[in-house]
C-alpha cells in the first residue's frame, strides 16, 4: 500500500531522464493571447509587475500577474512579436478574460485568444540543440535564452523559442500552425529517437517532476501567494505603476508572512497530501508543537536525486535548511528548492 507512484514507474522515469540526459519532446501547447495596438506596451506595463517595455522584438520575459491585493493570479511568458504586438503564453486565459476588460480603460489595445491556431512542442535536454539544428532551415546557434526567431522545419514555417519549463540549459519550444502539427510530430519523433531521446507523454513529468527539480512553479503552487513569498519579487519594476503595487509596497515594508521552502521525504512509499492534486495540502507541524506552520504545496519525486521532493508554503523563518520535521507521521527534512 502507498507504493510510490513515481519511483517505481519505469515509463515516467525514462521520460524524465530523457530530458535530463539526451532529449525529450512533447506537446506543450499553452493558451496564447495576442495583444496589439498603439498603447500595448504601456498597457502590459500596467498589467504586469515586471518590466516589459525594454523587451526587444524577438525577446521574451517571465512575469507574474497580480491582483490589487498583490496576490499572484497568473504567471506567464510574454513574447514581443513586433513593436506593437505581443503574445502572452498562459494557462489561465479564460480566468483572466474579465480582468483584461476590466482594466483596459482608455488604453488603445486589442486582444484575442489564438490558442486554436497554434501548436507548441517543447524540445528539451542536452541534445535538443543538436536535434533542432538538424531540422531547421536557419541555424539556432545564436539564439539566447528567452529569444525567439522565425524559421522553417522541412518547409513548415515555425517559430523557435529558446526557453522551457525543465531547468535544462538547452531547451526550445517550436510553434507551428495547428494544421502542421502531425507532420512536425513525425519529424520530432524520428529526430529525437536518432539522438537517443523520446517523447514525453506523462503530464506528471512535464508539469510536475521536471519543473520541480529545477525550482519552477506550476500555477497551483502560486495561488494566493505574493511574489515575496515565492521568491519572484526580484525582477519587479518598482519605477512604474502596476496592478497590485500599493499592496506589494506595504508587504515589502512590513515583511511577508510566509515563504516557500523545499523539502525531501527519504521514505519511498508515503501518503502525504499535496496541493498539486487540489485541496489544502497536508498540514506541517514542528515536532512537539501544536501550531500549524505550513502546508505541503507540492510533493513529487526527483529522479536525479532519487528522493521525494517538494515545496512547503510555511510561516516565514519557521523552517530552515536542514530542519527535521514530521509530516503525517513521515520524517522529512527542509532543503534548498533545487534538485538539479
Amino acid at each position: 500500500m502507498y507504493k510510490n507512484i513515481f519511483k517505481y514507474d519505469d515509463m515516467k522515469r525514462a521520460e524524465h531522464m530523457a530530458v535530463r540526459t539526451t532529449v525529450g519532446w512533447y506537446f506543450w501547447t499553452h493558451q496564447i493571447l495576442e495583444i496589439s495596438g498603439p498603447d500595448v506596451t504601456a498597457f502590459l506595463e500596467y498589467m504586469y509587475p515586471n518590466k516589459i517595455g525594454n523587451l526587444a522584438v524577438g525577446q521574451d520575459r517571465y512575469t507574474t500577474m497580480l491582483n490589487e491585493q498583490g496576490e499572484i493570479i497568473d504567471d506567464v511568458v510574454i513574447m514581443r512579436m513586433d513593436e506593437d504586438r505581443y503574445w502572452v503564453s498562459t494557462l489561465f486565459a479564460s480566468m483572466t478574460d474579465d480582468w483584461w476588460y476590466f482594466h483596459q480603460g482608455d488604453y488603445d489595445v486589442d486582444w484575442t485568444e489564438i490558442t486554436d491556431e497554434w501548436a507548441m512542442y517543447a524540445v528539451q535536454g542536452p541534445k535538443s540543440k543538436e536535434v533542432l539544428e538538424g531540422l531547421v532551415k536557419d541555424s539556432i546557434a545564436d539564439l539566447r535564452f528567452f529569444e525567439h526567431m522565425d524559421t522553417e522545419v522541412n518547409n513548415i514555417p515555425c517559430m523557435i523559442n529558446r526557453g522551457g519549463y525543465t531547468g535544462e540549459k538547452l531547451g526550445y519550444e517550436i510553434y507551428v500552425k495547428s494544421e502542421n502539427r502531425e507532420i512536425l510530430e513525425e519529424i520530432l519523433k524520428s529526430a529525437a529517437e536518432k539522438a537517443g531521446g523520446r517523447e514525453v507523454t506523462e503530464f506528471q513529468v512535464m508539469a510536475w517532476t521536471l519543473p520541480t527539480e529545477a525550482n519552477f512553479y506550476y500555477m497551483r503552487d502560486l495561488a494566493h501567494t505574493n511574489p515575496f513569498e515565492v521568491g519572484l519579487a526580484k525582477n519587479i519594476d518598482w519605477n512604474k505603476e502596476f496592478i497590485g503595487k500599493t499592496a506589494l509596497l506595504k508587504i515589502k515594508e512590513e515583511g511577508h508572512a510566509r515563504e516557500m521552502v523545499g523539502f525531501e521525504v527519504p521514505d519511498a512509499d508515503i501518503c502525504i497530501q499535496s496541493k498539486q492534486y487540489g485541496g489544502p495540502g497536508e498540514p506541517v507541524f514542528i515536532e512537539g508543537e501544536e501550531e500549524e506552520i505550513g502546508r505541503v504545496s507540492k510533493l513529487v519525486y526527483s529522479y536525479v536525486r532519487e528522493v521525494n521532493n517538494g515545496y512547503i508554503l510555511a510561516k516565514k523563518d519557521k523552517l530552515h535548511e536542514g530542519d527535521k520535521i514530521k509530516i503525517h507521521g513521515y520524517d522529512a527534512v527542509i532543503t534548498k528548492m533545487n534538485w538539479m
Partner: protein
Amino acid sequence: MNKKIDERIPQNSGEGAYFKNYYGIRSPWNKIYSYQEALHYASRFEAVLSAAATQALRIIVPDYVQRAQLMCEEAYERLYNAGKYYGNDDDYGIHPFFCGQFAGALIGDKGDDALLMCGRCQDFGTYRAEKELDVCDWDICGSELCRATTMSLQGQAAATAERRRKGPTMEYMMVEAKGCGDRHCRIIAESREKYPAPPHELWESFGPAVTDEYKKVTQEEDCVSESMMFREECDYHFVNGTNNETDSSNQMVKMSSAASTYILPAIAETVKRGYVKREQADHILKCVLEAAGKAMFGERYAIKACRDWLGVPNSIGEDGRIMGGLIEMLLQSLVCQYEVEAFNKEEVILVIDRGGLEITGTKDVPQTHLWMWQGMVKTLVNVQWSLTEEDSPDGKMRIKIAKKIDKFM
C-alpha cells in the same frame, strides 16, 4: 490552553446563490438555517427520494446485471453527448496540452465537491488517476448507481478527449463504493495502453485495478465531512490540481440528484426499450414513492423532530402548514422559486416553479416529489390530509394541502 478558534462558517457563505432575503433558508416560523445546512438538507432529501426511485427501477428490471447494464449504457450515452456538445474545458482547468481521457478526471473531481461528496484526489496523471471520497449522500441508492455514475464519468472523459490531441484512453473504475458498504468510494482510472487488463462488460466497472498497489487509503481519523467549499483550511473554496477555483455560491443551483441524473432517465429508458409502458412505470414509481413518504414520519419521534426543525409552535396542531413549511424549506434549499397562495389551518397552497424543481432539466422530477409528498403528509400530519396538484398555470406546479376524502385513496 489551546486557544485555537474552531472553524466557523463565513457570514457571506451562500452569497451569489440567489437567495431572496438571507444567505440561507427560513421556515414559516422563522427558524433559520445556513446555506451550508440547507445544501446538506436538500442533498440528503433528494438522495432519499432517489433511493426510493431506485426501488421502482428494481421492480421494473429485477435482474441486477440487466438493470446495471441498462443504467450504464444510458448514463454513458447521455453524458458522452452532454460532454460532446456542451462540454467546456475551461470550467475544469483542462489545459490545451492535455492529451487523452485523463482530463475527464477533473470533471468528476469538481462535480464531487459540488455534490458534497468530499474526499481527495490521490493521483492525477496521463495514465492513472485516483479519487477517494469520504462522504456520498447517494450511498443509500444501491450499487448499480455507483456503476452508472462511473460510466457517466467514462462518457464525459471520452467526449473531452475527442476535443484534444489524441492520447491514451482511460478506463474508469469504482474499485470501492460506499454504496457497497466500503468506507470510501474510490475511482481509479487506468490507461489500458500502459496497464493492460481483460475487457469486460460496461456494467462491470468495479475493477479490480491493475495498479492496486499504488492505492492511497485515508484512515478514518483523517477523513473529512465537508466539501472544500465549506472548509476553513481550503479558504472555503474548491480548488483542483490545475488551479480551477470556485466558491460555494453556485453549487446548489447546479446540483443534480441521483434521481434526476440517473434513476429517472434509466426508468425512461426501460419504457423506450419496451420493458414496461409509461403508465406502468409511473404506477410503480407512485406506489414506491408514496410508501417512502409515509415511512419518513411513521414514528412519532420523527414528527417531533420535524416540528422542532421547522420551529413549529405548540399552538399549531396537526394541519397542513407543517407539511407546507417543510416543502418550503426544500424549495428554498434548491433555490426553487415558489409563491405562497394560502397558508392557514384549513389549507396551504404553494405555486412552484416547475423548471426550478426539475433539477438538471429532468421533466419527471416534480411529479416524483409530488408522489413522495403525498405519502409524507399522511404521516407527518394525518390521513385526513392530502397533497394534490390543482389548476397549475403554465410552467408552474400548484400544490394544495388540505383535508380530502377519497374512497379510492
